């Protein structure tokens, strides 16, 4: 009987998924999508990107994974927004959704809007509703992405030059071949590669990890994007190289005046780079605010736990604080606060609904019933 129930359940899931897939493919097949369907107005014209109640789901064989479930935040012009969270909390999926790069038809944007202020055409667009041909004009041109692993994101059978040239050529069809090459070498010089002419002809395997990451950055910046999405740009690198890359990103941001969305799990990197910080947990934003808000007055117990569990230099710590338990299973998420079972401040109220977003100040928002009010001294402060 038990087995039968299980089989029926799986069958139901499959039916449901198939329905979703066909629906998705149908929408993809639409030839002519009128502009009016995806043109929108920005809520605030100082924002480059506005994400409103974004939902990105994966329809897998064992159930629906709500990787991103109702995420709302803005990226203002010329600012750096940092997203922190543990692996599997949906930070990468958010960025892939913005680029419309989710693995489809399994992964889909199930709801919400991503409004992008397209300055070059003087209009604002809703990315999930756009046809693919329009998206391709934005991808790499106005929104560029630096991927996580430089080792695997470069194509091993093409030279560095060819790979960077490709995006320049696609987005600037009027340029001559020699101009494209000059632009590519200029980009390589910009990211601090010493012998750019030589590297132009090299293959990815001939470069070290730090160099490959620079190439990735050069590629992302080659069309002067307005928004750079950096998905764990330094995770695979050593600290000294990490310092170089972060320094480079900061300088470049000032030079071409773009916004950065920085995704990382390292609070130190966030503190160094970000103006605004977003803390994600199990597909939802648990806390957001300016860097000062988050680092000096963390309000969500999870943020506090994250800060305390990181050993920091020059701090006398007898025992590291560790958050008990694990992240909940993304398929069977509870109806109450996802962090409740690991939280030390949980009360009876926490077993009810998922907590609403609470504004602590103009910039600081937290999704918790009993936010931590006292100041938490971070170990690094006295260093």
């Amino acid at each position: 009987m038990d087995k039968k129930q299980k089989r029926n359940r799986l069958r139901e899931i499959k039916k449901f998924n198939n329905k979703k897939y066909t629906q998705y493919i149908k929408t993809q097949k639409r030839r002519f999508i009128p502009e009016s369907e995806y043109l929108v107005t920005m809520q605030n014209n100082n924002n480059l990107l506005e994400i409103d109640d974004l939902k990105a789901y994966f329809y897998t064989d064992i159930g629906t994974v709500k990787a991103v479930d109702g995420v709302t935040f803005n990226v203002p012009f010329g600012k750096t927004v940092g997203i922190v969270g543990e692996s599997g909390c949906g930070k990468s999926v958010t960025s892939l959704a913005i680029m419309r790069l989710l693995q489809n038809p399994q992964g889909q944007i199930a709801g919400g809007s991503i409004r992008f202020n397209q300055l070059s055409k003087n209009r604002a667009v809703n990315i999930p509703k756009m046809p693919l041909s329009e998206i391709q004009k934005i991808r790499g041109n106005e929104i560029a992405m630096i991927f996580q692993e430089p080792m695997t994101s470069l194509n091993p059978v093409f030279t560095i030059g060819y790979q960077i040239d490709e995006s320049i050529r696609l987005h600037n069809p009027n340029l001559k071949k020699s101009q494209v090459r000059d632009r590519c070498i200029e980009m390589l010089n910009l990211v601090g590669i010493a012998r750019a002419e030589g590297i132009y002809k090299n293959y990815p395997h001939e470069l070290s990890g730090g160099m490959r990451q620079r190439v990735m950055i050069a590629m992302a910046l080659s069309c002067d994007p307005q928004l750079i999405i950096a998905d764990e740009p330094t995770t695979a690198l050593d600290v000294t190289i990490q310092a170089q890359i972060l320094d480079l990103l900061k300088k470049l941001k000032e030079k071409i005046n773009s916004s950065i969305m920085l995704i990382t799990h390292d609070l130190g990197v966030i503190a160094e780079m970000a103006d605004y910080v977003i803390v994600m947990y199990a597909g939802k934003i648990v806390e957001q605010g300016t860097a000062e808000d988050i680092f000096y007055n963390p309000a969500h117990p999870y943020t506090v736990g994250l800060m305390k569990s990181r050993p920091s230099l020059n701090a006398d710590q007898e025992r590291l604080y560790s958050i008990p338990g694990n992240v909940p299973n993304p398929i069977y998420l509870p109806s109450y606060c996802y962090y409740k079972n690991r939280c030390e401040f949980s009360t009876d109220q926490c077993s009810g609904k998922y907590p609403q977003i609470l504004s602590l100040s103009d910039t600081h928002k937290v999704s918790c019933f009993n936010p931590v009010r006292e100041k938490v001294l971070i170990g690094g402060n006295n260093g």
Partner: protein
Amino acid sequence: MDNNNLVEVRNLKTYFPIKTGVLQRTSGFVKAVDDVSFTIKKGRTLGLVGESGCGKTTIGRTILRLIPHTAGEVFIDKIDIFSMKHNELRKMRDKFQIIFQDPYSSLNPRLPVGEIVGEAVREHKIEEYVGEAVREHKVVDKKEYRSYIMKVLEDCGLSSHFVDRYPHEFSGGQRQRICIARALALKPKLIVADEPVSALDVSIQAQIINLLKELQEKRDLTYLFISHDLSVVEYISDTVAVMYLGNIVEMSPKKKLFSNPLHPYTEALLSAVPYPDPAMRYTKKRIILKGDIPSPANPPSGCRFHTRCPYAKKICSEQVPEYREIFPEHFCMCHKANGVF
């Protein structure tokens, strides 16, 4: 030899041959570890830090004779590891164990956890039955075997009913706990922990580090802790050694090293660590090293760090600096710290 020292490494060298051509002639050597000496006291932790490719992992593996050495001596518990025969070494292996970096690839996916943890216990027990080298603590009966494994799992913060499960059913943190249990099951004296937390999330990292510390107190273990994360190393170690291109460039008790780094490389490493404090952005001075780590197959002449060193002078490219005790227990390999200029 000092009685308190569990591990003593003298002038260890590990070179890997570079083979080229159809005939696979040796055309050169990658000097992964080049003349390294250090000691670890009983019940203490030596932290080994450095960038990738500097030879940290090679040291860890050479000490356990998982990689053939080129020159030098290693004594673990007063036994010369390199002069041992293979079958002798195999029997000795229960005294020193290793925890690998990636808990996802270092567990056999086809064995249940009990078997992974217990395999080695059983192996050494069989030798026990054969009657060689009586080791009191390793007498585990067939009946006791299972309960012993369960106890080890519980010691490592896993529940005992995990014995019959397979590795894919566990999360990263739990897998790393299984790896630790596997190392602990033989009641070793020395554990080489090769980046045990770098593949884990921050909140899980703290759990594993705490576990390692607890076990050290309970069982009087000695660790060689290899990591590239300075803050983790600072937290867990008693002594810290900084490596660069196959050499230990600085070694001292952790407090001295972190408050008063002598070698410019250590200084740069420390300043490169990002602090979780947004105000430090404006106040902190950071030394940003130029370029990449040079190839160990063709290391720079003189001081190996001189190509990236902000203080480098002419002498640095000509003479190899002496590895010297500059303050008591504080060793450094640098012309500047040695007072040459």
